[in-house]
């Protein structure tokens, strides 16, 4: 086994996902098959090979630090499931 039920539960917690018992069982089997497959990368010796995280030579794209018009507050808030006209509102953070 590449991944256990407990590990799936741990990863789900990190990813802020709540899985049902049935989902954990199914995902464990599927993730195990996928991780067993990707283990084929171990066949390759990559000592000294650099990583590619970006395919083009890119430098940081900076612009002048000047004030420009930005999204008006009401439009930024418009999609909020709960908001009070000034901020997004969320359930209590400290129990």
């Amino acid at each position, binding site marked *: 086994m590449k991944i256990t039920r407990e590990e799936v539960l741990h990863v789900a917690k990190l990813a*802020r996902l709540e899985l049902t018992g049935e989902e954990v069982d199914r995902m464990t089997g599927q993730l195990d098959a996928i991780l067993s*497959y990707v283990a084929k*990368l171990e066949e*390759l010796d990559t000592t000294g090979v650099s990583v*590619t995280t970006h395919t083009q030579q890119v430098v940081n794209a900076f612009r002048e630090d000047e004030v420009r018009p930005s999204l008006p507050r009401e439009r930024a808030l418009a*999609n909020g499931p*709960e908001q009070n006209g000034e901020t997004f509102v*969320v359930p209590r953070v400290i129990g």
Partner: protein
Amino acid sequence: MLDAGEVSSVALTESVWARIDAVEPKIRAYLAMDREGALRQAEQADSKRKSGPCGPLCGVPVAIKDVLCTTSMPTTCGSRILEHFVAPYDATVVTRLSQAGTVLLGKLAMDEFAMGSTSENCAFQVPHNPWKLGYVAGGSSGGSAAAVAADECFASLGSDTGGSIRQPASLCGTVGMKPTYGRVSRYGLVAFASSLDQVGPLTKDVRDCALMMNAICGHDPLDSTSIDCPVPDFTAALQEGLKGVRIGIPTEYFGQGLDPEVNRAVRNGIAMLKEAGAEIVEVTLPHTDYCVAVYYLIAPAEASSNLARFDGVRYGFRDRSADSLVEMYNRSRSQGFGDEVKRRILIGTYALSSGYYDAFYKKASQVRTLIKEDFARAFAACDLMVSPVTPTPAWKIGDKADDPLALYLSDILTLSANLAGIPGMSVPCGFNSEGLPIGMQLQAAHFQEDILLRAAYNLEQRAGVAGKKPVIA
């Protein structure tokens, strides 16, 4: 016809609505339509045309994948979590199409967050293949391919992270182009895997593809990965003949599991390109067998990070029963995301998590370098490469839905272009005995889209496939 004044954009747009009314109940490509907005844009295009010359796309009805932000319609990404989301700004490609004078008909169905190869992961509806109802249109830009193939729009935009433009284009018999990474702005494209995602057109023929590319390509200061590189007039590439062009055939792309009819159609296509004057050479991409493994670590890793923003706070679905913040996150995400998205978030989180990062994400990023180097070596020996797009033609809806790994493996021929950042294209080259379309993939070095268009144009002239229409019944 628009140019000659033979038809107005309003009349053209109305004819497309009539077509949509007739076939959409069977095809199910559209998630949203904007009849009033389209009529207004068509009227504007007509008055613009009367007052002087305007571009070739002025007044042409188009549609876009529902992963591109629009202020005029919701942007759902095919997900419950964004069911009612209306973006506060337009994607740069949407603005560019509007500046070219196109008429925006609506938003097209897709796999949830562009994760999938069949569009079956769409939370709202599954588009059907116009060539055979009950068969998949491909994915993740399945709606974009089906709508073009069914004449429900003249052209569309899709997005391609691992083949999501080229694969549905192939399965639906349309032309599809994934441009070089950085060629087209990603501003307003809802991110799946940021180092792989690219927007591109799906069209009825190669000329339309060149026209759409002219409209959408170019540097955008709003996308920091957009590249400031001159954009040619892509229609200049539509020339007869391929004398002096070296076409590489990658041995590894004609391997095990390739459907014999696909093999035959692509080999016929290669013979046509040779007839057109191209020189055919064998090339090798030795790390092809590792592409699926690399992709299904890197793409989920980036996705798990990108999709962290869907937390029920600023937009999207929120579970209202939770009485703490963390519980609200957990429940909103768990109810809002579908199975495939959850699966990829889990793989990605695992591959990036402490203790596994080196073995999975870092290892995959190193092998990505080897894959990129394979392409650099191959393109020293040829100007472009041709191959199949997919190992098989379209299959029945539901047939591969229960085995995620089997479906991932069917992406083997398209993933590497995204990993290397090179442009790729799908062009129809034939049909199988059931009448299902078969596409040919063309790949070239960075920023060489014009050589792809030139070869595709020559194939199209000879293959006799362009202009063939499905009978939708």
